[in-house]
C-alpha cells in the first residue's frame, strides 16, 4: 500500500487545474479578443459595431426565434410522448423509451444528411423552403433531448397528488393544468434548456438542411473566425455567453421556486 497521505479534498487538484487551463483560461482569451482591436489595443469598437449594425442583431433575433420555435415544437410533440410513456397504464416496457432515445447514439451528422436526402426525395428541399427544412431538421434532432428529461420527471411524479386533485372535485383539464403541468415544470425547464441554446448556436443543421441559405449566430461566429476576423467573432461569442448566463440565472430561480412549492404541498 502506498504511504502517501492525501486528503480527499486534494483529489480535486488535477481536475481543477484542467478546468483552469482548458475552460477558464480560453474563455478569458475570448473576452480579451472581444475587447481588443486589430492593433491590439483595448477598445469597445467591436461592441459598438455589433449593436449599431442591423445585420448581427437580426441574425441574433432570427436565431432566437428559431430557437423558441424549435423548443416550443419539441415540447409540444414530446410532452404527450413522455406522458404516455411514463403512464404505466399505457406502457410497461422500457424498450420503447429506449427506442426514442436511441437516435441520439447514431452519429448526428449522418442523421442530418439522411434527413436532408429524405426530405429532398419527398420534395421539401432546402432550396425552396430553407426555413421549413431547417425546422424539421432541428425538431428531428432535438426531440429525443426533450423526451428524456420530461420522461424522467414524469416518472417521479407523485401520482397520489393527482388522485387527491380528482378527489377534491377537479375535472381532467383542471387537474392537468393546475397539478400535472406545474409538477412537471422542472422537466420542462430542463428540456427547454437543453434545446434552446444548442439550437441557437448550431450551424451544421442550418447549413446542411438550408443549403447554406440560412444564417444563424453559430454560422456568423464561424464565418468571422474563418475569415480571420477573430475580434468580432469573439465578441459575438461573448454575447452568446452572456445570454447563456442570463438564462442560467433565470432558470435557477424557477428551479428553486419549484422546490419550495413542492415541499409546501
Amino acid at each position: 500500500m502506498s504511504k502517501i497521505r492525501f486528503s480527499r479534498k486534494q483529489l480535486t487538484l488535477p481536475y481543477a487545474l484542467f478546468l483552469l487551463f482548458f475552460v477558464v483560461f480560453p474563455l478569458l482569451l475570448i473576452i480579451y479578443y472581444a475587447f481588443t482591436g486589430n492593433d491590439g489595443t483595448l477598445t469597445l469598437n467591436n461592441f459598438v459595431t455589433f449593436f449599431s449594425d442591423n445585420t448581427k442583431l437580426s441574425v441574433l433575433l432570427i436565431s432566437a426565434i428559431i430557437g423558441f420555435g424549435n423548443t416550443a415544437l419539441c415540447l409540444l410533440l414530446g410532452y404527450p410522448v413522455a406522458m404516455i410513456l411514463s403512464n404505466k397504464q399505457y406502457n410497461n416496457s422500457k424498450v420503447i423509451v429506449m427506442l426514442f432515445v436511441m437516435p441520439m447514439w447514431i452519429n448526428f451528422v449522418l442523421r442530418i444528411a439522411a434527413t436532408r436526402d429524405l426530405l429532398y426525395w419527398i420534395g421539401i428541399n432546402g432550396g425552396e423552403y430553407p426555413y421549413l427544412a431547417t425546422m424539421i431538421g432541428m425538431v428531428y434532432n432535438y426531440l429525443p433531448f426533450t423526451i428524456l428529461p420530461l420522461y424522467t420527471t414524469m416518472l417521479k411524479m407523485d401520482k397520489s397528488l393527482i388522485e387527491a386533485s380528482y378527489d377534491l372535485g377537479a375535472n381532467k383539464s383542471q387537474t392537468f393544468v393546475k397539478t400535472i403541468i406545474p409538477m412537471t415544470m422542472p422537466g420542462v425547464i430542463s428540456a427547454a434548456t437543453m434545446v434552446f441554446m444548442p439550437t441557437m448556436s448550431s450551424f451544421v443543421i442550418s447549413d446542411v438542411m438550408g443549403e447554406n441559405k440560412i444564417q444563424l449566430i453559430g454560422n456568423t461566429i464561424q464565418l468571422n473566425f474563418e475569415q480571420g476576423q477573430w475580434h468580432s467573432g469573439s465578441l459575438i461569442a461573448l454575447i452568446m455567453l452572456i445570454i447563456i448566463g442570463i438564462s442560467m440565472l433565470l432558470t435557477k430561480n424557477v428551479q428553486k421556486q419549484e422546490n419550495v412549492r413542492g415541499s409546501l404541498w
Partner: protein
Amino acid sequence: MVKKGFAKAYIVLMLLFMYAPLIVLAIFSFTNTQNIGTWNGFSFELYALMFKNKDIMEALYNTLMVAVTSSIVATILGTLGAIGIFYSGKRIKKSMEAVSQIPVLNAEIVTALSLTILFVFVGVEFNFITLLIGHVVLTIPFVVLSVTPKLKQMDPSVYEAALDLGATPNMALWKVIMPEIVPGVFSGFILAITLSLDDYIITAFTRNNSFQTLSTYVYGATARKGALPPALRALSTIIFAVILIGLIIVNVRTKNNNGIIKERR
C-alpha cells in the same frame, strides 16, 4: 380504451417520424444507386464498397479511438474531481460546480473556438493531443454530473466507520467509496463515449487536418457531393443495427437481473 388506442397511435406516429430517415437509408443501402428513390436491384455492393474504402474505415477507427481515450481520461479526472469536490468546503464546492457547468451550457462552437484560440495562443501544432483535450473538455462535466448524485446518495458514515475500523484513508477511498459510486462512474463513462462519438464541432476545430473522424468525414462528403454518398448508407445501417442489437441485449439482461432479484426474494 379509445384513449389507449389514441395513445398508442401517437407513439407509433412519433416513432415513425424519428426513424423514417434511418429506415429509408437502410432500405436503400441494399441497392447500388446514386440517389435515394431509384431502385437498382438488390445487392450488397454498397457494403462491400464501404469496407474497401480506406478513408471510411480510417475515420471509423479514429472516431472510436478518440472516444475511448478521451472517455477514459475524462472518467478518471472527473471521478477524482467529483470526489474531491464532494468533500470540499462550501465555497470551493460552489465555484467548482459552477465552472464545471460552463462547457455543458456553453454553445459548443464557443467552447471549440475558445480552445482553438488557446492552442494558437500557446503556439502548438494541432494534433491528436489537442483533439483529445477538446473531447475531454466536452465530456468531463457529464462525468462529474453522473458521479456526484451517487456520492450524495452514499451513506456518509460509511467512510468514518471504515476509518474507525482501522483502514487507512487510501484503503477507505478505494474499498469503500469507490464501490458505492461505480454505477455513476460507469454511466459517466458511457455518457462520455456517446458524446464523443457524436461530436462534430469540437472535432472540426481542434483536430489536425489529416485526422478524420466519422463526423468530419460525413460532413465533408455530404457538403461536397450534395447528397449522402451511397457507401455511407451502408455505414449508417450497420451503426443502426449494432445499436439496436446492443439495446436488445441490455434489455434482456436487465429483465434477467430483475427476475433473479425477484426469485431471491
